[in-house]
């Protein structure tokens, strides 16, 4: 039987917790902190591991939905036509990983925002903003839920 990723991470955790950390002197504060953070990271990665592919796909789907909503909401003025065309291309492309696709679409939306502002296309910029902010917020809420397990979110972590 091949060892699963979870089995392997569990063995790393056990080594860090029962061998490495106790062997570090109290005064080795940075080393102790780094080991404790590493343990925390690995535990959270384990908790998220199975759901990670679906999470990253959803992230890609959400940015695609934002990009499509932008193109459907308003015709780009001529000063922004090139950026809008590049966004359309990016929406049709699939990169080797969902994250690469997500980043590529984000980049084109960002370029469109820059072009809209530089060309003083106020109405178009406002139209972009009306789409991006609620969808961006919805996405950020999902990301917060995802990272709530890390404990800094006093609203979602129960702090």
């Amino acid at each position, binding site marked *: 039987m091949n060892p699963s990723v979870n089995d392997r991470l569990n063995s790393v955790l056990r080594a860090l917790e029962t061998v490495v950390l106790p062997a570090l002197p109290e*005064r*080795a*504060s*940075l080393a*102790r*902190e*780094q080991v*404790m*953070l*590493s343990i*925390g*990271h690995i535990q959270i990665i384990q908790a998220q591991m199975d759901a990670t592919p679906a999470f990253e796909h959803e992230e890609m789907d959400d940015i695609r939905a*934002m990009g499509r909503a932008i193109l459907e909401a308003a015709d780009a003025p001529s000063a922004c036509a090139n950026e809008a065309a590049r966004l359309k291309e990016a929406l049709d492309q699939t990169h080797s990983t969902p994250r690469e696709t*997500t*980043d590529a679409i*984000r*980049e084109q*939306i*960002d370029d469109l*925002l*820059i072009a809209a*502002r530089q060309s003083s296309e106020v109405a178009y*910029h*406002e139209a972009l*903003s*009306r789409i*991006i*902010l*609620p969808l*961006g*917020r919805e*996405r*950020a*809420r999902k*990301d*917060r839920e*995802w*990272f709530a397990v*890390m*404990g*800094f*979110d*006093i*609203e979602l972590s129960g*702090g």
Partner: protein
Amino acid sequence: MSGTDTEPQLATMLEQRKARRAMPPYIPQRDADVAKLLQSFFDREKTGSEVRDVARIGGGASKEQFMFTLARSGEETRYVLRMDALEGITETSREREFEILKAFHGVVPVPEPIWLDADAQHFPTPAIIMEFVDGVTKPETEGVSVTGLGTVLGDPLRGMLADQYFVNLAAIHNFDWANAELEHFTAPNSDPKQATRWLINFWKGLLEQDAVTREPVLRLATQWLEDNIPDCDKLCVVHGDYRTGNYLFEEETGKVTAILDWEMSYIGDFHADLGWLLQPVFGSRIDGVFRASDIAPPDEMIARYEAASGNAVDPAKLHYFTVFNAWKSYILVSALGMRAARTAHNHQDVLLTFLAATGPLFVDELARLLMMEESQ
């Protein structure tokens, strides 16, 4: 004014940091190596001294810090060495930090800075040495938290610290900086918006250099901040990171012994400090009550600050700096911190990637604040 109008010293820092980007991974300093560096430093600076008990200080996400004892002529004094890594969650100057600590020594509790190696003539990176001050940043009951976020002071400490919290912040904002020796700070005095324009341009410069992904909500926030800069009616020293977790106190008496982390200070609008310390990420929520810095709810914080300082808080300006601080926080954790981790240029990469998970909090907050603007 152009988008490159930035405080001259900060503009230089933005340029200089580009050269560090291509450098090989940063190897954290080892206690024994630091002890040798310190000994050779004091052989020159204070002959007849012996460096002892060098030990790293934990915590923090930007600088390497070591505590040590200097023995000379039968006397022992404890100091702290604070050194840059190649990159970190902030981009700051040891020269400015040294100067501002000197300026505030005797005004509010701060560790006295003693030696400066601004250009890394002796230490591998720029460094300062300051006096060691006793105290804690959180009660012992708080347990081990290496992120420094969400400190709960609880009762009775909260009440013991609250007055000092506001008196010290008022003293910082009412400090006569114009007559202080602050050579490495420039006063923004060409127009009433210059102070905040400098600030925005500096942080935007950092974002452009370090962003690991482009986030549309951040772009909208950047554009909103550029388009809505308020006038600054009173230039003052802004601490830049004033909150619980960044001051030392005696746990038994509740006496504040030192205000720390002045590295992001500058001359600007005091509302910036208020927007920072009111952020949810630095506060606590207990039994449904949010307390900024675990001191008091936001309205009480503002009222007590006004009473202590005599500075009237303008709600519109506070709103502007609330947006600014969510934006700045994202840049710290999701741009500078992540870039430093990816380039392996810090001694705490594992902490930086942990802290980067706070990024969505700030995106959510920015989107919420900007939607409020749109609906008005």
